[in-house]
Each structure stands twice: as C-alpha cells, then as structure tokens.
C-alpha cells in the first residue's frame, strides 16, 4: 500500500513539472508580447523594454520556466538584479517562497491574489458539493426504489433538464427571480464566516451553490440509481434480505456500497475542479473567487496571473486524482495490484 502511494505521488509530481513546461510553452511562445500587456496603458517603448527585463521576458522560454520552478522553491525577486538590490531595494518586488509569479498589472504576487480569492471558491465548492451529493444520492436511491414509476421518470427527467440548460442561464434565472423579483432569499453576496457568522455565509452562498449543484446533480442521480439497481440483482443482496435484515440496512449497507466507489471517484474530481473556481457561476453572481480572477486575468492578458492560476488548478486536479486513487485502493483492495 505504501509503495503504491509513493509511486502515485512521484508520477504526480513529474506530471505537474511537465505540465508547467507545456503551459509555459503555450503561453510564452505565442505571438503576443507579455511585456506590452504587463506594462499597462500609456507605455513608452523604453518602459516596455524595462518591464520586459524586470520580469525576465527577454530570456528564452526554457530559462523563464527554470526561473519559475526555482521561484516556487526559493522565492525570487523582480527584477533579479543584485546590483539594484544594494542601490535601490525599493524598486524590487520580492516574491517569497512558493512564488507562482508576479502580476505587474495588479502589482502583487500571484500567490497573494490567489489567496484572497481562494476562500470564496472553496466556500462555494463546499456548499454546492453538500447540496449535490446529498440531493444526488437521495434522489438516485428514490428513483431506483421506485423504478419505472412516474416518480423515477420525473426525477431522472428533471435532473437531465437542469443539466441541459446552460449553467449561466440557470444562475441568472435564479438570481433574477428568486433573489430579485420574488425576494425569497437576499441578493447573493459573499460574506466570510469571520465577518458575518455561519448563517450569513451560508445564505449568501445558497443560490450560486444551488446553481452549481443543479448542474452536477444529474450525473450523481443517474449513477446512484444505476448502481443501486444493478446491486439489486446480486446474490449478496438476496442473502441479506433472506437472513431478515431490515430493508433500510440492506439499502444503506449493501446496496449503496456498490455505488460508493464510482461516486467517490466522480465526487473527488468534480470537487477538485470546483475548488479551483467555478468560472461561469462566479461571473454570474459576481463573486470574487478564483474563477472570476481567471476571467479578469485572461481579459487583461495578464500572463503571469493566468499561468499561475492554470498551474494551480491543474495541480489541484492531479492531486485529487492521486487522493481518489489512494481512497479507491482503500475501499477496493483489488485496485492495489498493478
């Protein structure tokens, strides 16, 4: 088991390094000059040249990539110039140890920008996750138990409909009608737990959380339903019923166990990509999470910030993959081999 985890972690780290190289090649080998956009409006050619030097854009892509990796481990200075450090330390922007880059446009390190946005995305992901996982499993089990009836069809049909409407339409619809027109909930707004307490935090996240959950729920309803139905034909379930186990226990302990492994996989990966920012939902509800940050970065062609977010998100996904695989190995011993 330990060897398995080590193997997965090592291959994950290699994957992250390769991915960072590919990202650098994609973004810095393009015909767009990053210095022009980092320099901002009203930029003179001389200033642009200075910015290029300060941010290291005059180096070859591979050197830039090497500097980036070095920066992640030991931090770096912009510009990295020991002479300047002695004469005018105020002009140097220091980016401490896990340095993911420096956004000249925001005059801040990428890590700081991400740190500010992260709690919003994380909160949103958690609320959405709780709604969709409980809703998905509950409706999936109900649909399976009432297989073929109108309840079953209704649940599967409605979840498919919510899945099919574009997320931003559902979000805007909820926003427009539930919050503004009918005023069932207050207008969604992110308030951290530290500022407004748990309840205010939750209420503020209800509509965007629901928007995301409605989209994700469809898959979980279908999967839970399919696996519970499949397990109903199995011998071990007949045995459980025959020995007089309470129906509820049969359902929870035997039937749903079959659905657990695929659900863990799906939930882990979905959650990981959500933690990295729900681009559409955050834009619709105007929440300053990672998704919104990414949109702003991409619009302004703020390359260091964009690259930082892409790398961070991809790292989340890779790590989630590893965690899911390890969990999988715990749940299902057959996976450990190979």
């Amino acid at each position: 088991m330990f060897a398995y985890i080590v193997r997965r972690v090592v291959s994950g780290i290699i994957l992250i390094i390769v991915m960072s190289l590919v990202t650098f090649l994609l973004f810095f080998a393009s015909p767009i000059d990053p210095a022009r956009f980092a320099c901002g409006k009203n930029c003179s050619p001389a200033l642009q040249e200075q910015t290029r030097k300060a941010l290291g854009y005059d180096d070859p892509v591979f050197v830039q990539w090497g500097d980036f990796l070095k920066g992640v481990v030991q931090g770096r200075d912009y510009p990295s110039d020991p002479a300047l450090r002695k004469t005018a330390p105020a002009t140097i922007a220091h980016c401490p140890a896990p340095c993911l880059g420096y956004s000249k446009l925001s005059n801040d390190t990428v890590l700081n920008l991400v740190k500010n946005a992260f709690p919003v995305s994380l909160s949103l992901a958690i609320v959405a996750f709780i709604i969709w996982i409980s809703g998905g499993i509950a409706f999936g089990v109900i649909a399976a138990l009432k297989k073929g009836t109108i309840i079953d069809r209704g649940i599967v049909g409605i979840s498919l409909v919510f899945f099919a409407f574009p997320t931003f339409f559902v979000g805007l619809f909820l926003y427009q009608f539930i919050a503004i027109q009918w005023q069932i909930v207050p207008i969604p707004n992110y308030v951290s737990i530290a500022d407004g307490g748990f309840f205010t935090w939750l209420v503020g996240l209800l509509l965007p959380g629901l928007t995301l959950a409605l989209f994700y729920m469809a898959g979980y309803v279908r999967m839970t339903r399919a696996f519970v139905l499949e397990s109903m034909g199995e011998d071990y379930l007949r045995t459980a019923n025959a020995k007089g186990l309470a129906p509820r226990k049969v359902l929870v302990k035997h039937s749903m166990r079959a659905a657990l492994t695929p659900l863990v996989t799906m939930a882990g990966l979905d959650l990981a990509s959500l933690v990295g920012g729900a681009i559409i939902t955050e834009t619709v509800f105007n929440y300053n999470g990672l998704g919104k940050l990414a949109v702003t970065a991409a619009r302004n062609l703020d390359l260091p910030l964009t690259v930082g977010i892409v790398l961070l998100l991809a790292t989340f996904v890779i790590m989630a993959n590893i965690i899911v695989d390890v969990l999988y190995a715990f749940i299902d011993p057959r996976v450990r081999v190979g």
Partner: protein
Amino acid sequence: MTISSDLASHTADTSLGTDPALEPVAGRSPTQLAMARFRKDKLSMAAFVVVAVYLLLGILAPFGVKFGILDPFSFHSSAKYLDIESGSIPKGFMGGISWSHPLGLEPGTGRDVASRLVYGVTFSLTIALSATIVAVSIGTVLGIVSGFVGGYVDAAIGRLTDLTLSFPQTLMLLALSGLAVAMIVQAGVPAGNVAQALFVILVLGLFGWPPIARIVRGQVLSIREREFIEAAKLMGAPRRRMYFKEVLPNLWAPLLVYFTLTMPAYISAEAALAYLQVSVKPPTPTLGNILTDSISYSSADFFFFFTPAFLIAVIVVSFNLVGDGLRDALDPRGAR
C-alpha cells in the same frame, strides 16, 4: 448480410422441407438487431426525431438566409415595432409575436428572433460537430495506436492523456483565447469570426480527446487478440491496414455512442464560451450568442431570454437520450 441470408434460405430449404407451418428464420446481423432494439425504444426514437429536425434546420438555414426567407440581420428599430420610450422592448404580445415574426423581435435592435435562432442552430451545430470530429479523430487514432502497439508507445500516450486531462478545459479556453486566435491569424487564417470559430473548435477538440482515447484503447486491447488480426498479421498486412481496415471497423459502435454524447457537451460549451465572450463574435448568431445578448432583457422580455436557452436544452437532452439509447441498443449487456 448476404452470407447470413443465404444461410437462412439454405437451412429453410433443407431442414424444414415442405412443412408450411414453420416460417423460414430470417438471419439478422447484430447491426440490424441493434437498430431494431433502438426503434423499439420510444423515448430514444422521439429524441432522434428532434435531433434530425435540428440537423435539418441547421443545414437549410443558410439557404433560407440566401433566398431571403430568413432575415437574421436587418434591424426593425423604428417606433412601429419597438417601444422606444421604455428601453426598446418590442411592442405586442410576448416580445412582438406576429405572422412575419413568429418568435417576436429582439429588444433594442428589432431583429427577427426566429431567423436568428434558426441560423444560430447552423453555427452552433457546425462548431460542435467540427470540434467533436477533431476530438473523436484524435482520440481514435491515439487509442488504436496505444492499444495495438502497447509497450513504450502505450505508456507515452497514456501519460499524454493524463497531462491533457489535468488541464482545466474552460479555463484554458478562456486563457488561450487571446493568444491562440493571434496564432491562428498568424498561420494565415483571415482574422475575425473564421479564426475565432477555428480557435473554439481546435481547443475544444484538442482538450476533449482523452476519454475517447481511453475507451478506444480498452476496446482495441481485446480486438487485438482476435483471430482475424492474427490472420491479417500472417498475411503481412502493413500497419496502416491493420489500424484502419482491421481494427477501426470494429470500433464503430462505441465511437457512434461517444460521438452522440460529445456533441451536446460541445453545444453547451459553445454557449458557455459565448457567455465569456470568447466564442464567435456578434452579429453572427450562435445559440450561445443569442442567449448572451438576451441576458440584459431577462426580466423585461422573458420570452426572448427563455427561447434560446430552451432550444439549447432541448438539443442537449435529445442528443443525450439518443446516445443513451444507442448505447443500450448496441450493448445489450449494459442495458439497465
């Protein structure tokens, strides 16, 4: 098919002899059986009809525009059509529905909504279809090579799959939009919507192939061990023949299913991209574009806001149902 029907008539002739009570058994190929199963599934058939209608609309719309039946571009912004005093909302029932404008007019500009939607279907389906073709082609080729060759090649393609999967797709589309369009223009494609559409197609396709490659690889691993592959090998068939003449024809069932399940994902993706303003630019209509345009009128002209979203939802649901139906029909063991 000819062999099986010959066989059927042959057995009917010899074994049944002159007994008229026994009908000769008509042999049916697995494909025919699957199609019969699909036809029995009413929901999938209904969905199939809907998909067919969309495809037909999509194909016919450009001709409609050319011959003046559809008019998605001209403005009707005079006071006769729009209520100039209150935000240029169309006059009349549900956004100005009339005989000449069956789905009303667009608020603000007064363009014909029905024409724009039908023409939008053309662009949305073209983008989704092209992106699906790119994704399925890459996935199929890499999957076949990976499964058939094995060894280092298989491992390399496997890592490439992992790498591609780890990129956040929506974010990449958004982040690359400025750069990649510039690259496409540099490669000689005229700037504007052609480059923009090409960008959407390429990025969707280039990031969308991994699941297909995995499925194909899994299938190829079992096909590889079959006798006809051995026979082809003994006859000295070249690689290309092995891949495309021996292996590929055995893959059409999973590919067809995957194709119909990827299409709706890309139709939704196009809408999301339009919302993020990285899809084809207006005035060219796509379903996503029209929906994005309608957002600011969501409360003033709800019908205009709802229609494009509804059209997207219907085609997405239909494609998914057809895909599910095909999967159940083609793989009876997987039937739930």
